[in-house]
């Protein structure tokens, strides 16, 4: 079982005990991640794995992972995984869940994977009401290939393919995927969280839990979009990632439940 962290607000540097907290990791994490300092994706992975343990569903869980920096998590997550083609995770998850309805199936996809390459797959999987949970790690940039514009890059954001900042006239508008999915029948739960602050991490973890509870109750498609920091792709220092995210992405993609679970207790 996971331990609950006690978060005490302080302006002092961490003392000797802080190291023990940082060293603790869920037992489903088989090793260190290899992503950049300040990346939000390992935090998202951690709260996802902790949720599986909290719900006691680890040994009936199958992950379906797309292509992005988080693809390297396949090596460190102790979960049965199908690593699938770019954008197609919701389709693969459909095949898995239909053949093994007793399992808990999740996809892990980035914004490039789900909103660029796989927009069709996620929309139709949601509209079919497939009883799977999709996790969207949205950092508004192609991190794995070095910081190019994705469909969720916000206006004004600098990327290597919109170097002066995304301009609507030239590059079009960002797609609020979770809002679109929330509008579809067949969808049981949609929420948008973030991992920029301790508070948002805790709230996002509750969202993931609600999504899996909804899946376990057979209510249909659930999606949790998680805004994750990508200081490298945003050309900011690692410590500034969360602040940049709050000022840019969180203004365009407001956090909270976008389609609350109806039959649950969340």
């Amino acid at each position, binding site marked *: 079982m996971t331990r609950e962290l006690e978060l005490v607000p302080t302006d002092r540097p961490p003392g000797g005990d802080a190291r023990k907290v940082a060293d603790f990791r869920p037992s*489903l994490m088989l090793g260190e991640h290899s992503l950049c300092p300040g990346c939000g994706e390992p935090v998202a992975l951690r709260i996802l794995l902790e949720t599986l343990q909290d719900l006691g569903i680890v040994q009936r869980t*199958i992950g379906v992972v797309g292509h992005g920096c988080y693809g390297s998590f396949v090596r460190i997550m*102790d*979960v*049965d995984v*199908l690593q699938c083609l770019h954008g197609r995770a919701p389709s693969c998850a459909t*095949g*898995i869940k*239909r*053949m093994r309805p007793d399992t808990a199936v999740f996809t892990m996809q980035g914004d490039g994977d789900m909103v660029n390459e796989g927009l069709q797959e996620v929309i139709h999987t949601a509209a079919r009401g497939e009883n799977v949970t999709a996790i969207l790690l949205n950092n508004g940039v192609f991190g794995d290939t070095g910081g190019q514009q994705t469909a969720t890059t916000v206006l004004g954001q600098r990327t290597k393919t919109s170097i002066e900042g995304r301009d609507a006239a030239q590059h079009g508008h960002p797609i609020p995927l979770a809002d679109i999915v929330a509008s579809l029948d067949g969808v049981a739960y949609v929420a948008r969280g973030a991992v920029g602050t301790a508070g948002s991490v805790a709230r996002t973890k509750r969202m993931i839990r609600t999504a899996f509870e909804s899946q376990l109750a057979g209510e249909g498609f659930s999606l949790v979009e998680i805004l994750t920091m990508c200081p490298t792709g945003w050309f900011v220092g690692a410590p500034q990632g969360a602040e940049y995210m709050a000022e840019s992405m969180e203004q365009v993609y407001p956090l909270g439940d976008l389609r609350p679970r109806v039959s649950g207790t969340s």
Partner: protein
Amino acid sequence: MNVAAPSVPQPQPQLQLLEGATAIAESAILAGCRFFAGYPMSPFTPLLEHMSRALPAAGGVCINVESEIEGVNMALGAGATGARAATGSCGQGIALMQEAVAEAALNETPMVVFNMARNQQDYFQSTRGGGWGDYRTITLAPKDVPEAVEHTQLLFHLSQLHRAPTVLYGDPLLAQTRVGVHLRKIDFGELPPQDWALDGTRSGTGKSRQIWTWAMGKATDPGLGPDGHWQQIAAKFDRIAETEQRSESRYAEDCDTLVVAFGSAAKFVEYVVEELRDEGHRIGWFRPITLWPFPGPALAAATRGVRRVLVFELNAGQMIDDVRQYADDRDAIRFIGGVSIHESGLSFGPLLDAPEIRARILAASAADSPTRSRP
């Protein structure tokens, strides 16, 4: 006067008059297919329609998908659980699926692809593929509906045996012809345990499974990685190329002219050759049953000492590339096929006709000045 009918054991199974697509679908279900996903496209459509009715009744799932790309990836996901899964389409639809077919070959996920082609112009598509990486697809080309029924079950078996996607090369005649068939489950023997199949039970045990084209493994149990894994895949396809060749021929040992054809066209060729034999012509036929692996050694043997090797296929010349690789004497090869499409674009044209094939065989034989005679 009532007379009790004598208790005679009925021959099983009974002969049923079925449309080809229906027979193939029923055979797939007999083979254990429990997942099917497809997008309507003629002449694949009736297979999807029948599956949508029959598969749920058999406890399976059939999904009318929004694209071929989603259909093939669903089948890949279903196959990854160890279920017998299939998809299908033709032409452009199969083209859209190529990325996932390659992926399934490289991450070793079994599935069957029903290519109910509109003609024979997709030989390269099926045997060379349009995906990426070093992979092949076992492709069976039945000559008629009864054989398609048998091939369907064999493909599910081979797919599981080799953990690889397999392809049925069908056509409009196979999809739409109504013929009498005996539907029965065929036993192809034992299969290795599915210890690779994802079911979630090993999650959290430190021995969780992964299906991953790159085969990097877990941090605690590293995999072969792309170099080692892809070498292993290449070696597997080398073995399959050796062991899974299938072909059929007649009169090869007693002919000057050998006609090579596949699929429905081969059935027409067979008929014409019999006719010409009856008239005293020294002629025979050879039919690759597996388009990949191509039965090269069998073709080499069948063409040994033959004066003319005539290749009849309904395309601009695709299988002829494989014939050229293996025929005993490449100079003896003549192409007598060609592009021939029905005006609808959806089926064979006038070249698939016995008198036309006969005329082409005779013309090629007359025009030829054989370079050597049979020893």
